[in-house]
């Protein structure tokens, strides 16, 4: 250590400003009590042993908990099982961990040692050998002289991934028919049904101020198929009845509502969360994901937040039996924007 102190001055003298302080070298080592006091040493050893014992008790406790607390299918039962298993495991692990760290800190030699560093760079002589080896190899291969061979090898390597990529890409996107975004399960005459029971809604059921989460009327079999989830992801609709005097409607959409009842897509035009929070007083519909706010009384226009476009409206009417029905599918793609949305 002492040699080191003196060598700093010598070694660094050239590349150091003259007017700089000198490195004082490592501070004096301060011994721990356990280094000199056998009693302290014994005490530290006992502490380490106790910590290992705690770990063993923890493992045993965890095994006991395994047998004692059988999950009974209730959340409380699972909680108590999880809690006791977890505590046992925590003690088992923390016992080992703290014992090892305590051992290292109190009983193992704590005198710091110094190791030299060497520059990362390879010394010049070795570098020359390395470069020589590479150029020997390159010369052996003759790559510089054989241009056509080089081109052929590179081309072969460059295109072979296509043998994997082409079949993969052709199938990974299903049928790649992205025009499906434009259509939903709604059609002329499809009844509006309550989500999730599937019971069709009569216009008379929709009182002023009430709000209905709506899906297209479908058979139970269809509703329990997997394809339904994908259909439902586009088709969910929110139905609200407003006082017709509060309702501002565009000229060309006057006949899209029925007696103050309006139906809007529930899929946010921002990134597609279900817009589920309806505030009756203001007629505002709020998306809980990113807080885009739509005014249902005014064509579901955006009044705040990151969405740009109004929610698409589903034109509705009433059939002979008084049920609400769609007059057609949506007139634009529902959900988030995408490049060719309006093509």
């Amino acid at each position, binding site marked *: 250590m002492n040699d080191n102190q003196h060598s700093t001055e010598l070694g660094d003298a050239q590349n150091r400003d003259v007017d700089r302080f000198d490195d*004082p070298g490592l*501070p004096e080592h301060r011994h721990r009590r356990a280094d000199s006091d056998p009693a302290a040493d014994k005490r530290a050893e006992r502490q380490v042993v106790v910590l290992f014992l705690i770990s063993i008790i923890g493992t045993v406790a965890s095994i006991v908990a395994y047998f004692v607390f059988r999950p009974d299918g*209730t959340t409380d039962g699972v909680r108590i099982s999880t809690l006791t298993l977890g505590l046992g495991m925590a003690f088992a692990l923390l016992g080992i961990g703290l014992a090892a760290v305590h051992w290292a800190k109190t009983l193992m030699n704590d005198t710091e040692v110094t190791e030299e560093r060497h520059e990362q760079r390879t010394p010049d002589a070795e570098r020359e050998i390395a470069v020589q080896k590479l150029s020997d190899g390159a010369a052996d291969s003759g790559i510089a002289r054989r241009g056509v061979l080089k081109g052929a090898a590179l081309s072969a390597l460059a295109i072979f991934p296509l043998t994997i990529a082409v079949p993969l890409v052709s199938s990974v996107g299903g049928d790649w028919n*992205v025009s499906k975004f434009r259509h939903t399960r709604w059609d002329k005459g499809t009844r509006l049904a309550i989500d999730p029971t599937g019971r069709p809604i009569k216009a008379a059921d929709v009182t002023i101020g009430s709000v209905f989460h709506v899906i297209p009327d479908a058979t139970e079999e269809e509703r329990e198929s997997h394809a339904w*989830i994908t259909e439902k992801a586009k088709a969910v609709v929110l139905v609200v009845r407003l006082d017709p005097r509060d309702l501002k409607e565009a000229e060309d959409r006057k006949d899209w509502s029925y007696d103050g009842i309006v139906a809007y897509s529930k899929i946010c035009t921002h990134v597609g969360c279900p817009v589920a929070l309806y505030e009756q007083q203001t007629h505002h519909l709020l998306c809980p994901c990113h807080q885009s706010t739509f005014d249902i009384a005014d064509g579901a226009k955006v009044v705040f937040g990151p969405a740009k476009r109004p929610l698409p409206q589903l034109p509705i009417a009433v059939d002979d039996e008084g049920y609400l029905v769609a007059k057609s599918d949506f007139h634009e793609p529902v959900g988030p924007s995408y490049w060719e949305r309006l093509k």
Partner: protein
Amino acid sequence: MSTTERAAAGTADYLDQRTGLGKAVKEFARKTFPDHWSFLLGEVALYSFVILILSGFFLTMFFVPSMALIEHHGAPATMDGVLMSEAFSSTLHMSFDVRGGLLMRQIHHWAALLFMAAIVTHMMRVFFTGAFRKPRELNWLVGIGLLITGLGAGFTGYSLPDDVLSGNGLRITDGVIKSIPIIGSYMSYFVFGGEFPGEDIIPRLFTLHILVVPAIILAMIGLHLMMVVLHKHTQYPGGGRTDKNVVGFPLFPVYVAKAGGFFFVVFGVLALMGGTMAINNVWNYGPYDPSPVSAGAQPDWYMLFLEGSLRLMPGVTEYMIGDYTLSLNVLVPAVIIPGILFTFLIVYPFVEARVTKDKREHHVLDRPRNVPVRTGLGVAFLTAFIILALAGSNDLIATHFSLSINEITWVFRILLFVGPWFAFWVTKRICLGLQRKDRELVLHGHETGRIVRFANGEYIEVHRPLDEQERWLRVAYDAPTPLELEPQTDARGVPRKGYKKERRWARLSRFFYEDRIEPVTPSELAAAHAHGSHDELEGAKAPELHAGDTTHEGDR
């Protein structure tokens, strides 16, 4: 020789004759590592990853990565007979019927949160102490790679249980993918195998989550640690610690015990969290259904900045180019803002080296105060990150503090632009202040509180000079000067090539090093003492030097 020793020697001999293991043991057994609590942050990340693998292995034994619809039978009672995907049903099964299953799920989830937190704080340590400098720039890049794949691991895992929250998270992802110009809708099909949600996404995410992403992380961890061994660990400044040595404790036995023990400590803490702190009770949310959504839902913390970014962007920024829709209201917050953040992290070490004209290897860490602009930039970056993360919780802030969500959103929109500048300015000033304080301490010593009265009636406070270790810590740093710009024309009056580029770099260099505090020199200290004890009361002003004025006070 005892029997154990004989057996050990025999085994060692057997292995060495076949592998030459002795050379590696000779090289590594007593390898020196310096000691500091902040060096544990990277260890926490590494151990969390090991725990993720262990608990994740347990979970894969019971998880069924399938979106096929089945009727769930069994616990919990609220879900009995409900139609759901096999993925969700198996998640319920492993939580309720497999003993220790919920514990492992919760350990796994907490470990994921800790993994990301440890990576981020470890990066902060590396950034603020300048540990990314030569020769460690490449390892810094590997670290950023680990951060990004860590985000990927978290995202793919979060989506697997197929509950309402994870499904809505995927739906947001779908919306973001669709906003990509030209290929957005095809990318969405590429990911989901058709329309959202389809039947493919969970098996696909499963393969990514348990095979591809962990393999990449593992490979990068290997590379990361290999370079740590190659470079030898950095050390904090102090007497006897130079760029040419490493001072610390030997790997065997000290770090075997300390680091090995620390693994168990981290695991123990995670077991405690998994056992006592509920996380992601998916049975309360129910299986994914495209219709319901819960208010106040938050993604895991490391995704909050993206969520906040999406929430802050005003919707008016969606534009039409002819008949085509360009959704900048999604593209900017979800792609461009994270792009800017990561680009900053990637280029920073190279920019700093360029404006410092620094080609030396650095193994002694910087004290953050001694590089005020770097520290300021780091704090500004964190400020932006935190503002975005808070914005991702704006609905909770609104409900907990009864504030208007619209106003909160506006405040965050403004803060995102103002906050980082302010944080930079304040941090830089604090650093410069701390450096001045260091100078004063070195020049005048500690205040002792002891007042002495001279014969002529004058009072002074006695100052106790710093010992040489205290002083070395405060003077052993470099204060780089801004790059000097060569004249626009050469000696013959011909305009030089690349002058404009050089001028831009020189400007940036000035931004970095214009305001700087030089370390005290021995002659300054001697001068301070020569002035007599009176001066110690006056609190000499530290010279703040400016570009071009590089003379030391003491040289005059």
